[in-house]
């Protein structure tokens, strides 16, 4: 019989077994025994957030930028309910998070005790799985299983709810080993014949498109390399979802930019007119497809995904390959190269017409905007930020709204795991705490949260975390005093009734930065923008950058509701603009 240890100690032993280095959290009554144990485990560093939601998003940022699971500690009741947003966010964007929550002692469960809530009940629909621990002797097994569930298959959040008495109780710790007895999800359910069928479709196509998503990032850096190789040996064009940005170099000629509601004109027209659509690790989200009935009407569709329930969920596909992107692409490329050497050259003729059509669409220059010498255009600000930071290994997070779309459109990503944004849930307030997590995982790198002034106020308190741990994150606020995306929709869809989308009493962000003990910078005109951005980059402290931008700029191009991909609204520079936008107002 081994030595008996407390439940609290088991938590740390399990984290050590999994090589966890950082935990994001916030203490409270029901998780105090665990915090009491922290001092005995020097290898694990705790980052104290200022709100449990912040701890959750920081764990997400850590996970997304490092490829390792993020861990969060919260207390019972409000601690647990506060992290629900972050768990749901991680669930939607498939981010591995292990949340350990304290619970009131077992004998008080169900009595409406102080800070009691039905944590497993509340988090059941927003986690891959959760556990309420009732016996300390099951705790170690549950913790190992929690890590396994969070990180295998389609990743996602899990929660382990540990009553306070279980944290005190002593029991036997079972070491982590790759326990075969666990029901292992069969990740790869594809065969050589699926790959052969896929190659057959690739060879037949004269209008192909690769459409890649977050699944490529989740499959690890090797998957991105394989995507690049596949695009190179086929000569096909590629577009990416918001979550997939960075898997393929943003400035490469074969890359058509992001697709979807605010995607480029060329990417969306390619999606509409293609004869073969190869979805790699994306999920046919409604921001991508628009009206499903008219989505890519003439194409054969291939879907490569690790999650069988993603197949045919929104769009019916002709060929499904269920497996880890990396494994599928490995076999695909190996088979393809063996049977079709020099395909890129020999096939060039076949898809040349397709490429010249794409060039025509490209001349629309759909990300264009009318720049100004008087007021900073938000797109210009993102472009300058990109130009001044692209030589560095820069990590970008965002909040949610117009600035998020401008970041996706105008910042060019070249590496996976470098763009962290809340896509599925669309959580305003995600970017600042996520940047905290990213900086923890990448201590010497430049981490910038491209933010909006409305979003960033939702989790502003985490600046205090950044200051405490000397995390030099840069909060680059595109300040237009409006909830920009809300205002844009009100302008286009609700007869310019700007109900409650204007924030009349914004704080002075420079003074706010100083109050937090970091640096505030404000840029008012295009002339001073570059100098101020450079100043920001050179400060080795957290910075709040208040970039005052045009208040009325809208995010274009845009697919209006109920429209197929080939009927986009373009920006003000487009000559048909007046006509299109009048018509658009009737249509949307």
């Amino acid at each position, binding site marked *: 019989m081994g030595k008996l240890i407390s439940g609290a100690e088991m938590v740390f032993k399990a984290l050590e077994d999994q090589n966890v280095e950082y935990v994001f959290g916030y203490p409270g009554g029901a998780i105090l025994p665990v915090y009491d144990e922290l001092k005995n485990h020097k290898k694990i560093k705790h980052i104290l957030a200022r709100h449990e939601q912040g701890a959750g998003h920081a764990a997400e940022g850590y996970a997304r930028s490092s490829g390792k699971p993020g861990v969060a500690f919260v207390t019972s009741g409000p601690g647990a309910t506060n992290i629900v947003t972050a768990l749901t966010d991680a669930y939607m964007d498939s981010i591995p998070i292990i949340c350990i929550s304290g619970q009131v002692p077992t004998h008080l469960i169900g009595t409406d005790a102080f800070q009691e809530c039905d944590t*497993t*009940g509340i988090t*059941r*629909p927003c986690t*891959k*799985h959760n556990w*309420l621990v*009732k016996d300390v002797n099951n705790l170690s097994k549950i913790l190992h299983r929690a890590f396994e*569930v969070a990180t295998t298959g389609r990743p996602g959040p899990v929660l382990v709810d540990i009553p306070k008495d279980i944290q005190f109780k002593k029991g036997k710790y079972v070491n982590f080993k790759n326990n075969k007895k666990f*029901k292992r999800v069969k990740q790869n359910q594809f065969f050589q014949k699926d790959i052969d069928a896929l190659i057959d479709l690739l060879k037949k196509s004269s209008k192909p498109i690769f459409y890649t998503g977050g699944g490529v990032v989740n499959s690890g850096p090797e998957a991105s390399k394989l995507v690049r190789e596949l695009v190179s040996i086929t000569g096909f064009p590629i577009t990416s979802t918001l979550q997939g940005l960075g898997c393929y170099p943003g400035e490469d000629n074969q890359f058509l930019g992001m697709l979807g*509601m605010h995607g480029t004109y060329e990417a969306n027209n390619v999606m509409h007119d293609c004869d073969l659509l190869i979805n790699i690790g994306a999920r046919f989200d*409604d921001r991508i*497809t*628009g*009206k*499903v*009935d008219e989505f890519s009407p003439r194409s054969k569709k291939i879907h490569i995904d690790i*999650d*069988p*329930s993603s*197949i*045919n*969920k929104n769009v*019916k596909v002709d060929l499904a390959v269920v497996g880890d992107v990396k494994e599928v692409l490995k076999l695909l490329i190996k088979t393809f190269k063996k049977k079709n050497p020099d395909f890129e050259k020999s096939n060039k003729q076949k898809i040349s017409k397709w490429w010249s059509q794409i060039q025509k669409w490209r001349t629309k220059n759909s990300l264009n905007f009318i720049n100004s010498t008087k007021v900073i255009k938000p797109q210009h600000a993102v472009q300058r930020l990109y130009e001044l930071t692209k030589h560095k290994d820069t990590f970008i997070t965002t909040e949610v709204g117009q600035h998020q779309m401008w970041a996706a459109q105008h910042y060019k990503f070249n590496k996976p795991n470098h763009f962290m944004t809340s896509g599925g849930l669309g959580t305003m307030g995600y970017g600042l705490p996520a940047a905290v997590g990213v900086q923890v995982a990448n201590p010497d790198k430049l981490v910038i949260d491209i933010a909006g002034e409305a979003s960033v106020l939702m989790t502003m308190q985490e600046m205090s975390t950044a200051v405490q741990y000397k995390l030099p994150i840069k909060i680059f606020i595109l300040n237009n005093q409006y909830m920009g995306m809300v205002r844009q*929709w009100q302008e286009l*869809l*609700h007869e310019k009734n700007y109900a409650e989308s204007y924030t009349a009493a914004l704080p002075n962000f420079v003074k706010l930065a100083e109050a937090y003990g970091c640096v505030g910078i404000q840029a008012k005109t295009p002339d001073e923008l570059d100098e101020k951005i450079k100043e920001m980059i050179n400060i080795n402290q957290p910075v709040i950058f208040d970039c005052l931008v045009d208040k009325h700029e809208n995010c274009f191009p845009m697919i209006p*509701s*109920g429209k197929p991909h080939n009927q986009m609204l373009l920006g003000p520079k487009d000559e048909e603009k007046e006509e299109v936008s009048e018509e658009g107002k*009737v*249509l*949307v």
Partner: protein
Amino acid sequence: MVKSKSAYSVAGKQGKLATHTFVVWVDNEAGVLARVVGLFSGRGYNIDSLTVAEVDKKNNLSRITIVTTGTAQVIEQIRLQLKKLIPVHKVADFLSSDKKIIYREMALFKVVSSLKKQEKAKKICNKYNSVIIDKTNRSIVLQVTALKNDIDKLVNNLGPLGLASVSRTGAVAMTKGAEVFK
């Protein structure tokens, strides 16, 4: 065209509805039924009937039978989403018109009426191997095991005879012959 004020896409055409019976083998642990039911309510699927009980004490397994109605796409999603739940071991999807599958549902009928009407009620139920569970001068409780549609009919027919209370278990299902669902 109706003017949409939403930035969401408009709903597409709806497919044909069909009734399916799902049999789900799960670990008999706390909260497992809530996970299954929560999946249905959270994703907007229907539950026509649901029944659950432990079937294997040694391996701690319960068997859940759910009758549901949906389009082909929804039915496929239900199957795949159920399989993703951690405590779920296997999922069988039976079409309700499948002749290779046996379906049964049990019902208890309490008829409160005169002896004459009670006799009539007994007669109506006889066709389904009914059993008299309880009887007084004023009332009779009949147990019937039959298909869902037959029980629906019985409920209608017993109504005028003083049907005072109905209790139904919901359908259970099993494959015919020596075959066992794997």
